[in-house]
């Protein structure tokens, strides 16, 4: 455990500062190329550059390569390849409008390195009841997990700072859980995700200077899913991600099919005169987490963001309780 302190410290510092230092030049570069979109939740015509994925993936790759130099785990190689593939998929979607099938299918393919490197355990661990061995089913779970976590994080990237801020809470919760279940090496491998998200949040928080885009959101989500698999904490990871899962669940259960957000005609939220957000009565619009939060009355973008962060902290606490319950057998 003690010998892991230095790799953990070095990789966390590198993860944070690579993103912290490379994001401002990336913002300048994207501004020069006019790669900006209108921030729909601002009264004025404010343009925000995107995607921030390149600085996020750079922070992840550099910090994980440093960790590989110390730990030499196959799991790290699988993590780097899968996360990089998710970035590439997101980047293609950032540059070109792709169909609704594109991300789920290609993200499932991006999960193949996890299987190829044998960076998983076929035992699925449940709190209180123990493990269940599902060799064939688990392969399917690996192929499903990356598209689910990737798209889940992408789906909450709707307001300034929410995706990166939520990821800070969820990923640090997951790291704490990995320490609780005494999977120290993977806990350290997971730490850069939290620090990369934290550094990016500095520029993504309200008022955003950059949006992560699909490349950033899919990178964060895919890395989170990969850590869940290689750390054998799939159930705990799902619990920590529950607010985002609820968002996807509400969306899918109201739309009843897999579609891109841009294909939805109905508007779930609209603006008041003072540009607060409020839920619409539009029956054709999907039900989302933000729409439900607004059902109690209009809120500012910042207030909704903090409401989602509070939900993230609540589910993070449930994840920690779940991790403690892993050691208890009925």
């Amino acid at each position: 455990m003690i010998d892991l302190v230095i790799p953990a410290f070095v990789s966390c510092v590198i993860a944070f500062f690579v993103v912290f230092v490379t994001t401002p030049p990336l913002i300048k570069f994207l501004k020069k190329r006019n790669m900006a979109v209108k921030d729909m939740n601002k009264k004025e015509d404010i343009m925000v550059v995107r995607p921030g994925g390149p600085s996020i993936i750079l922070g992840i790759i550099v910090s994980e390569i440093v960790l590989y130099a110390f730990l030499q785990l196959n799991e790290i190689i699988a993590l780097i390849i899968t996360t990089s593939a998710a970035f590439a998929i997101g980047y293609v979607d950032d540059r070109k409008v792709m169909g609704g099938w594109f991300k789920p299918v290609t993200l499932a393919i991006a999960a193949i390195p996890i299987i190829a490197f044998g960076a998983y355990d076929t035992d699925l661990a449940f709190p209180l009841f123990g493990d269940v061995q599902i060799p064939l089913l688990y392969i399917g779970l690996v192929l499903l997990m990356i598209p689910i976590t990737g798209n889940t994080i992408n789906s909450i990237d709707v307001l300034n700072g929410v995706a990166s801020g939520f990821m800070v809470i969820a990923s640090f919760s997951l790291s704490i859980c990995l320490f609780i279940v005494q999977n120290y090496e993977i806990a350290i491998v997971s730490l850069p995700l939290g620090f990369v998200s934290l550094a990016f949040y500095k520029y993504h928080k309200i008022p955003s200077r950059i949006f992560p885009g699909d490349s950033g959101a899919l990178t964060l989500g895919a890395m989170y899913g990969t850590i869940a698999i290689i750390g054998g904490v799939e159930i705990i990871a799902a619990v920590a991600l529950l607010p985002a899962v609820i968002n996807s669940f509400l969306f899918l259960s109201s739309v009843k099919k897999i579609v891109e957000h841009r294909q939805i005609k109905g508007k779930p939220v609209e603006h008041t005169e003072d540009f607060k957000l409020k839920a619409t009565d539009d029956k054709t619009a999907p039900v989302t987490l933000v729409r439900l939060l607004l059902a109690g009355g209009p809120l500012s973008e910042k207030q909704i963001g903090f409401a989602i962060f509070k939900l993230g902290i609540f589910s993070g606490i449930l994840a920690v309780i779940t991790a403690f319950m892993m050691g208890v057998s009925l």
Partner: protein
Amino acid sequence: MRTGIYGFLFAMWILILIGGGIVVTILGPIEVTGYGDANWFIASVIKAIIAIILVVIWILILSKMKNWIFKKEIRT
């Protein structure tokens, strides 16, 4: 409305715990014999079918719960 979301989140967590118990006690012990090398494969297919059924039931319960919690909140 916001307390309803916390309640929904907590209900999801409880359902995950209960689902875990069902998976370990029902899915885990399933074994198939008499098919030689295909035993593990057939057992896996049976486990996969049961798991899919459980997921569908889980989603149906969540949908009912969502309607119940949020409609009650809107009424109040």
